């Protein structure tokens, strides 16, 4: 029991990552109605490009990280512009399948480029553990939590204070009305992919010093982020945050207090129970604002 604070701190760290990924899923879903499986690859490429720029090209972090995020955002935007927009069928199921196909393709490409070995990125600042009461936290956990909080605040300001952000919420709320006031829906869809790419890459980069990164790291993280989005209420930013944090806490408390072998099982059983009782997720889409 005395380790409970430790589990909570670890839970908040992974939870923040899940929340960022969940918001990425939600933003794209709200603009397009699809579940973008490519989100997994945004995570992978964020981490792996940083490996390339930092370890191989020897750029410092403050160049390597923004550069990787920009590359993945461009990749996400291009994916929408070239692949999604030109799809002959606008059927949601077909579009989702296109994202699955693209995801498999990019995973294979990552294997070709970087091989199957995992890479370790060094922490952003030192490795000296910090003692908080009877728990120990490494500085990277604080980086993850801090960067996630700042990102969420910036996103909130974007969605509520800028006309483009408001237009994105308008498209999520009522596409026909958005068209009528003169919003170019294609532009908003494009932007949603860029934001999805940004958030996926960011999550993949800041977690890499803790868990290592490899060509297939995005799949499981993406799945958890997707689960977090459903848990909280798919499509909502508040729901994504709550779902992400809750899933992170469940996993770590489950692993610590019961058994680490059952960590995924415990988390997903709770997920299924929540969905069973409240299909719209904890925050229930009907009442909350979408992003």
């Amino acid at each position, binding site marked *: 029991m005395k380790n409970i604070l430790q589990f909570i701190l670890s839970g908040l760290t992974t939870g923040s990552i899940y929340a960022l990924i969940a918001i990425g899923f939600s933003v794209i879903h709200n603009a397009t109605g699809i579940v973008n499986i490519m989100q997994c690859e945004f995570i992978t490429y964020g981490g792996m490009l940083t490996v390339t720029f930092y370890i191989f090209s020897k750029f410092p972090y403050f160049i390597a990280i923004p550069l990787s995020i920009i590359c993945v955002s461009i990749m996400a935007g291009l994916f929408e512009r070239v692949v999604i927009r030109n799809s002959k069928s606008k059927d949601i199921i077909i579009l989702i399948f296109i994202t699955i196909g693209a995801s498999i393709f990019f995973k294979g490409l990552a294997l070709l480029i970087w091989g199957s070995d995992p890479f370790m990125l060094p922490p952003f600042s030192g490795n000296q553990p910090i003692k908080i009461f009877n728990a120990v936290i490494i500085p990277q956990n604080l980086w993850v939590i801090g960067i996630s909080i700042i990102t969420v605040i910036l996103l909130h300001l974007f969605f509520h204070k800028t*006309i483009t952000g*408001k*237009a994105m*919420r*308008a498209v*999520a*709320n*009522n596409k*026909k*009305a*958005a*068209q*009528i*006031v*003169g*919003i*170019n829906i294609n532009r908003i869809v494009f932007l949603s992919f860029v934001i999805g790419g940004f958030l996926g890459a960011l999550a993949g980069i800041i977690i890499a010093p803790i868990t290592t990164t490899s060509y297939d790291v995005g799949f499981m993280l993406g799945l958890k982020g997707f689960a977090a989005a459903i848990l909280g209420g798919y499509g909502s930013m508040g729901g994504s945050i709550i779902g992400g944090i809750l899933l992170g806490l469940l996993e770590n408390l489950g692993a610590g207090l019961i058994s680490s072998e059952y960590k995924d099982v415990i988390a997903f059983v709770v997920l299924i129970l929540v969905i069973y009782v409240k299909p719209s997720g904890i925050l229930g889409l009907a009442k909350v*604002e*979408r992003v």
Partner: protein
Amino acid sequence: MLKVKNLSVKYGEIQALHDINIELKKNEIVAIVGNNGAGKTSLINTITGIVQCYDGEIIFNNENITNLPTDKIVKYGIIQVPEGREIFSELTVEENLELGAYQRFKKEDKNKIFETLDEIYSLFPILKNRKNQIAGTLSGGEQQMLAIGRGLMAKPKIMLLDEPSLGLAPLIVEEVFNVIKRLREQEVSILIVEQNAYAALKNSDRAYIIETGKITMHDKSENLLNNEKIQEAFLGKRRK
């Protein structure tokens, strides 16, 4: 100002509009009256580029705007106030109004947009009282006011109103039409499509009657209001 020439619209095999010719002059209020399914909404949606036309032309100030995407049509100042009050129900009243000026944010000073916002608030004081309320919680009449206010935020040259009286109590209908008539002072030309023939004819200069996708009659509104055929078909009066 706005001319629709020989317009035809098809949904697959079904032809919704046949050879429609209408005209809207500067500062005019023109009504298009017809029953459910006559093609009224199709006509408005085609003018604003939501529906593509099959044949014919739409001309605005000598420019061909046929089949342009909606955001381009909005740039010309042609604004639709949709049927069923398609407002942003999850956003606040003020955000709804700001989004009405979406395209102006890119090229105009913000203060000018807030000036328009103040004008809308003085036109509809109720919206000012509720500006921070979620729009979905407004009453039907208030939502209609919001939809009109949002349209005005774009500083339109032409406003296309789709069934502004739909689902409103008679007193509120009168209020809405009073507002519409006042829009003329702001140099907005107005095209109203309505099922409520009496309200539409009483509050417009000219009117077209549309039946199963065809224009069947066109005259000054007061003449149509006194026309026996119209009275029988739309106003529920029996022939003596």
